[in-house]
């Protein structure tokens, strides 16, 4: 089972569109897929999939109306693709506490599927960060514009700080290192400057943390690409991230802008269903193929229509 988390600092970059399209592509490859709307504050993954029933949803589970998250999985119009909707009354669940978050994570891991895709909300709140950094395949969605790129870097830096902080807490590193992190949080020093300081003051610890970061390997999707330059931009962002943030950001690909996505939303029709022959749909199929690494077993393949 693989858990994906689709996130990225800025709102409106197409996280839900990417999550739903990847889910549809993986399901059409013969995989059992569950999509979860984990944007607890502003869910709308269901609108991309054109599904109706508001209940059951994540909110019902979190408020204790039924004991297992698995009971909230509802079929979609696509075979093998299930959906767990986001909460209807966001007011009560948008800011879940740490323990409810852990409970949700536990139940997500207990779901039976080949792929579980979490559609996260924008921003760098701990809820989004924790789901993103703990996913096996974190997917960062950007668009080729300064606001999205800037927020994307803020998001990645926050993820790194979150990992380092959890790591330090776990190993009870002494006050000095905590001070360093506090310094970067308060003075908004860049991560690279922080590492420079760390290398100077404590090279061994810097080495330990660099190894801790090795486990965090997000993928980058450049959504709404208008031309080849936007694809080049995606590659360049992955390169400079590797160089300066010391994390291995893998450029998954560019998704060509298609203005018909907008119309599909109005019709509540999944784009992948309405325009399977488009370049945009082909881009998602290619990404799914690249990331769907385990071979399709004969049993699963026989279920393919």
């Amino acid at each position: 089972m693989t858990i994906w988390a689709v996130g990225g600092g800025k709102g409106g970059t197409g996280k839900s569109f990417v999550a739903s399209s990847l889910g549809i592509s993986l399901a059409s490859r013969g995989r059992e897929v569950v999509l979860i709307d984990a944007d607890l504050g502003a869910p709308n993954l269901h609108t991309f999939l054109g599904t109706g029933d508001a209940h059951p949803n994540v909110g019902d589970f979190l408020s204790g109306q039924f004991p297992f998250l698995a009971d909230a999985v509802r079929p979609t119009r696509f075979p093998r693709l299930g959906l767990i909707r986001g909460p209807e009354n966001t007011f009560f669940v948008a800011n879940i506490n740490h323990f409810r978050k852990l409970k949700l994570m536990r139940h997500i891991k207990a779901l039976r599927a080949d792929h579980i895709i979490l559609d996260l909300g924008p921003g760098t709140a701990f809820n989004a960060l924790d789901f993103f950094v703990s996913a096996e395949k974190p997917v960062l969605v950007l668009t080729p514009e300064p606001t999205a790129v800037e927020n994307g870097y803020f998001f990645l830096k926050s993820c790194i700080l979150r990992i380092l902080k959890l790591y330090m807490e776990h190993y009870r590193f002494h006050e000095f290192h905590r001070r360093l992190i506090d310094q970067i949080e308060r003075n908004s020093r860049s991560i690279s400057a922080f590492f420079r300081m760390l290398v100077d003051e404590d090279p061994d610890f810097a080495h330990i943390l660099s190894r801790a970061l090795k486990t965090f390997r997000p993928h980058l999707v450049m959504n709404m690409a208008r031309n080849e330059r936007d694809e080049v931009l995606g590659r360049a962002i992955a390169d400079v991230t590797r160089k300066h943030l010391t994390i291995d950001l893998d450029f998954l690909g560019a998704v060509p802008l298609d203005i018909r996505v907008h119309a599909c939303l109005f019709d509540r029709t999944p784009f992948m269903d309405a325009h399977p022959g488009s370049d945009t749909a082909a881009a998602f199929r290619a990404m799914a193929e690249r990331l769907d690494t385990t071979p399709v077993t004969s049993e699963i393949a026989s279920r393919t229509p």
Partner: protein
Amino acid sequence: MKPTPFKRINDMDLYEVLDIGRDVSTDAVADAYRKAVEAYRPGALTSYGLLAEDERRSMLERIELAFRTLGDDERRRAYDEETFGGSGTPSLGAAYRRTVERLEIGDADRKTGFVERLRRFFRRGPRPD
């Protein structure tokens, strides 16, 4: 080419700065230079929000230096010889050269130039540790 974790901008060798291997052609150096300038020029979208302004500037200066050095066959040979030598580990000459390079970079910006730094050092005295 992947950089070593936590390498400071001034500690990256000139090939790392341009993200190229040591065996690439002069044309490839020019291509890499154009790509790098595009990524770190003022207001560049690629590094927008990634680096602090002073870091971005020193990266750009380092890129210029890399192109001046690696884009010229004669200088590139001398740099390779001094930096990597025959043993693959940086030589004493390389350390000297890097120091001079840093001073050159520093002098490119008058406010943080070498002379200015010396002046400030004597005005303030050594940093307390």
